[in-house]
């Protein structure tokens, strides 16, 4: 007895070709738009002298988290500058920001819908599982067919890869809001929108921010992989280091990625869960205490 060979991949390839043929102008438009967006942001980050941007990053760290984090940021970013990896690092940051923002714009509403409808949740969950467990490199093939080589396929692959935790954690955030508090909103005659905006989102914010944090982290890891399809930035450096077996460059590029990752992680983490030691928190406390004195 033989089991018939099922060439599922062929169907997917046919589908990809069909999409490519039918939506060529649209795909080209998306490609140009994404490339322009990433180039614009990286241009903005690279326009001033690196030290100015380093100072800005340090200030942001101080405002949102703490003095120690600001010091770590200063040392880390200066290290990136001194390794002569500032330019690719900013390109990668631009790609991560664009991909993460688009992923969140898609993920948060999907998460809200999933939290409100069990049916929708049941449909979305396996799709998210599929997206998350599929090896990241596999996404690179169809996006290259759609968008060619460059930034756009990198952004697209990154969005797909980084999306699931955004949806999952938004759904969780809203579902775990205390039932009685939501009931209170209903009992006083709140509309669905008022309850969402006034109770569920603010109370779920820490969890949603954990999702945002995860999305950014995944986007960063994928942005490096996207170097293989010509997305530039640190990914290109890493890919170059692999092809030339250049241990020194590989280590430096890798270290720059780690520094970016730590910075983004701690910064977004601080937005979700205030440490109370940030400059903003200190100023806010002073302002509250001042009238009492």
């Amino acid at each position, binding site marked *: 007895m033989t089991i018939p060979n099922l060439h599922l991949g062929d169907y997917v390839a046919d589908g990809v070709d069909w999409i490519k043929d039918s939506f060529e102008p649209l795909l080209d438009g998306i490609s140009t738009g994404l490339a322009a967006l990433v180039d614009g942001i990286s241009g903005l980050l690279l326009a001033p002298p690196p030290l100015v941007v380093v100072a800005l990053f340090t200030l942001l760290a101080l405002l949102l988290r703490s003095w120690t984090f600001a010091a770590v940021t200063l040392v880390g970013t200066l290290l990136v500058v001194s390794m002569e990896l500032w330019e690719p690092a900013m390109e990668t940051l631009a790609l991560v920001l664009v991909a993460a923002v688009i992923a969140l714009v898609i993920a948060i509403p999907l998460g809200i819908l999933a939290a409100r409808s069990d049916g929708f949740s049941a449909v979305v969950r396996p799709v998210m599982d599929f997206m998350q467990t599929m090896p990241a490199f596999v996404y690179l093939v169809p996006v290259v067919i759609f968008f060619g080589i460059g930034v756009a396929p990198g952004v697209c692959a990154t969005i797909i890869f980084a999306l699931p935790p955004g949806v999952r954690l938004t759904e969780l955030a809203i579902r775990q809001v205390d039932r*009685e508090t939501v*009931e209170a909103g209903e*009992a*006083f*005659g*709140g509309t669905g929108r008022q309850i969402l905006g006034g109770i569920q989102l603010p109370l779920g914010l820490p969890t949603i921010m954990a999702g945002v944090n995860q999305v950014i982290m995944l986007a960063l890891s994928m942005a490096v992989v996207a170097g293989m399809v010509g997305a530039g930035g640190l990914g290109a450096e890493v890919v170059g280091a692999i092809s030339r077996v250049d241990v020194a460059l590989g280590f430096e590029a890798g270290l720059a990625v780690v520094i970016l990752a730590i910075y983004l992680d701690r910064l977004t983490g601080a937005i979700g869960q205030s440490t109370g030691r940030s400059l903003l928190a200190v100023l806010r406390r002073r302002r509250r205490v001042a009238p009492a004195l």
Partner: protein
Amino acid sequence: MLEEGADRAKLRKEGLTAAVIDATFDVAPGEIFVVMGLSGSGKSTLIRTVNGLLEPTAGSISIDRQDVTHLSRAGLREVRRTKVSMVFQHFALLPHRTVGENAAYPLQLRGVNRVEREQRAEEALGMVGLAGWGGSLPSELSGGMRQRVGLARALAAGTDVLLMDEAFSALDPLIRKEMQDQLLELQSELGKTILFITHDLNEAMRLGDRIAMMRDGRIVQVGTAEQILNEPANDYVAQFVADVDRSRVLTAGAVMERPAAVIGVEQGPKAAHKLMREHQVPALLVTGRNRTLAGVVWEDDVADAVKKGAEKLPLSDEGAIRVTPDTPLIELFGDAASSRAPLAVVDDNGRLQGVIPRVTLLSALSVPDGADGTAGADGAESAAAALVATGDGGTVLDTAGAN
């Protein structure tokens, strides 16, 4: 299935739970109506059907003569905004908003402008004794204070009907008592229609003008605290009330006896002597015109007066101890101990309503006969039958019918 006569246990085998079955009751305007039952008796479900958080499968609920069971979403919102507000067991405050913003929350949902809603929130906070706390965050407040905010929020909404779902159950006993006192005080000023859910019988007896006892989704008895104590509808209620501190629930008016050993002030000592011998009592209450209490005469004095041939009754200087009908029994013991004469229950005009001899006072504290015996079983059946007969398969709550 319920309509075919199945009970809760039978339904449970099918994997279903009937939370509330055939609950029929009216709540009068200005009344505190307490629904009392243990956890799982369906009382929380019951209160949630009243403001439409849950929809009953059968029956109807009317508030202010308006049927709220079959309203559209918008209609239901309107009812919740203007007629019914709710106080929650775990306060359900918004932790990211200040106390003032929390109290103003119902008004904000309604679209009231900032100035007015802040003013009304401040008023409501003042009513519950939290004036000046508007700028604090709920996390900075103690449990009792948080529930005051919950109460202020419901008051700021300005609705006639207040639903209180185990509102004080999460508080420490001392704080709980304080909150009960405050609720009663507020109620005497505001006269809201309150549906109060609790599993604490003492709380039910303290607060409730009337009490509905729930068990397994059905209401087994509705009545005043005294009716439930003295005429429990079945064994379940009787067992339940067995541990109640009767001296705090029962009032003088509920236990007083018809004043038999009473004599008119115009009568002579001989008549008094005869009456004392007839009733075997050492003292008589003396009433004047319109049955107003004039005083008390003692056996020894009367005997002296008869010997001397006096015309008038020898009224004692000691006088009779007067109590009002709504005095709880616990406050009568001191008086009863200090006087051998029966306590005189008088109304606001000084008219004698009844007497409480010491024996009556003591026997009132014992559980009534039949309540814990077999005799109660018959009563239970008939009462339950009467309830099912009046129920039309659902809940009827006329919270403001007389308005």
